């Protein structure tokens, strides 16, 4: 166990964590704000990269390619929203159906190949795993991704403070009340799914650039990594009182912690094969903690109860 191997691997883990941090912010919108588990993301996390890489291979600029990735994600979210709200399919199942359909679509986008490589030497990529150290800071993968995170959080912070954004938040908080206040909860739910998947597709596009290829399987288990990031962020930074923007930032930081931990456990000798099992166990444990705490470690309330107005 050479400490230098670990230290050398850290900048890469950090950059990767930041990219998944964008994904975690997207997932935060459905999981935390809308209060539904959207499994579309496992598909979207491959779609964004596929669209981005194929567009660039066909000569489009990075800007256009990223924009199209975002739109592709938005459309995927819209399909899930339609299945869920217009056709009454439970949210989890609607997400699974879209995800399944996306697998074929992703292959179709990548011209029937399971992966498509793109070289940072020939194309003007924003981030690359070869640009994690020893390059000018403005080319550094972590730096570029941090810029993305700041801009995305700023836009989302503004948006969820608008009338429309507030109605999406209230839909997640209390759908009955929202309808009583004249909010079409079908539209707000769909809108939330669209924005969420758009951001996740963007993360996917960055991830494909970072790796140097788009892969039809790169989204497998994405929801678990996203949830792990959100939960780790909540556990580590939850005590710090913060506004909405900080909570999204916490999810992104959670992703970095997650990747650093992964790096450490592989360095300590965990076969890479077991990484997915490790991720699943982490999420299960952190999801179970609040429940078990309530059930077994709640202090009995003193006689007379707590004063309430």
């Amino acid at each position, binding site marked *: 166990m050479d400490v230098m191997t670990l230290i050398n691997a850290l900048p890469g883990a950090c950059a990767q964590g930041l990219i998944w941090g964008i994904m975690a912010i997207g997932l935060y919108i459905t999981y935390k704000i809308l209060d539904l588990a959207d499994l579309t993301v496992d598909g979207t996390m491959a779609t964004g990269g596929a669209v981005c890489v194929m567009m660039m291979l066909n000569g489009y600029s990075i800007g256009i390619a990223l924009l199209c990735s975002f739109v592709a994600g938005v459309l995927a979210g819209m399909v899930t929203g339609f299945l869920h709200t217009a056709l009454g399919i439970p949210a989890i199942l609607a997400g699974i159906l879209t995800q399944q359909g996306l697998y074929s679509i992703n292959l179709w986008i990548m011209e029937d190949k399971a992966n498509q490589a793109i070289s940072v030497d020939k194309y003007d990529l924003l981030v690359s795993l070869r640009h994690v150290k020893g390059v000018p800071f403005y080319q550094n993968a972590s730096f570029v991704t941090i810029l993305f995170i700041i801009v995305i959080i700023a836009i989302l912070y503004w948006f969820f403070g*608008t009338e429309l954004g507030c109605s999406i938040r209230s839909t997640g908080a209390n759908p009955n*009340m*929202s309808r*009583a206040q*004249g909010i079409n909860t079908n539209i707000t739910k769909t809108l939330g799914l669209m924005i969420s998947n758009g951001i996740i597709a963007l993360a996917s596009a960055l991830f494909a650039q970072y790796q140097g290829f788009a892969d039809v399987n790169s989204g497998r288990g994405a929801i678990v990594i996203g949830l792990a990031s959100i939960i780790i962020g909540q556990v580590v930074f939850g005590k710090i009182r913060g506004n909405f923007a900080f909570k999204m930032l916490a999810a992104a930081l959670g992703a970095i912690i997650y990747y650093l931990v992964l790096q450490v456990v592989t360095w300590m000798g965990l076969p890479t094969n077991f990484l997915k099992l490790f991720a699943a166990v982490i999420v299960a444990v952190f999801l179970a903690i609040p429940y078990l705490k309530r059930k077994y470690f709640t202090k009995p309330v003193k006689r007379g109860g707590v004063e309430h107005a």
Partner: protein
Amino acid sequence: MLRINNIFKTFNPGTINEKTALRGLSLELAEGDFVTVIGGNGAGKSTLLNAVAGTWKVDEGSIFIDDADVTRLLEHQRAKYLGRVFQDPMTGTAANMQIQENLALAYRRGKFRGLRKGISHKEQEQYREQLKILELGLEDRMTAKVGLLSGGQRQALTLLMATLKKPKVLLLDEHTAALDPKTAAKVLDATDKIIGKNQLTTVMITHNMKDAIAHGNRLVMMYEGGIIFDVSGEEKKKLKVADLLLKFEQASGGGMMNDRMILS
């Protein structure tokens, strides 16, 4: 203001749980009418309010609010006409949003929600004034999350939200039933105050016969999905709880009394 024509509603038709909750009910409210609705469990009181609110569509009949036919409108489409307070204090507010955010959501009922700010500084002042009416000190806690409030405070807030934009009809579904007697009296006081000030057309369901007599200008008794007694004006003022019990006994053949009605 509110016109209900011969509405029917059957739940779970064709199953063992089939239940006809409304049987040809008709009711007409003039502008400014404040009707209290009483009746035993399963009489169809809440079903009546849900029919007006559009939680689902009625099987037969029609509903007009202020001459607009709302029979086929969805719940959120009817919301611009209606203010609603529910029995469960958790139902009417969003717990993890601020008091002022909840009010701002209600203030935009029936309006297009775009990309303007969710809550403006000018509104905040307005809400502070409105919250003072409730006399609960909520005006000093406008940025607190609603989840921190007690049941009574939440109901009072929901009441304010329901009336912030003057509704054509205010629907109160046993909105004090889940509160302790002292708090219930307070919320009812606030209800009277707000309804009186804005001259609101109101339908209030209650289990408490004394409340039903003491509030409003008209009283309606429901039984098995229809109206069996409708009294207003001077006649209503003279009403005693004993009269209502007698009416109820006559309608139900004496055997259907329920404890909550006797005790209250």
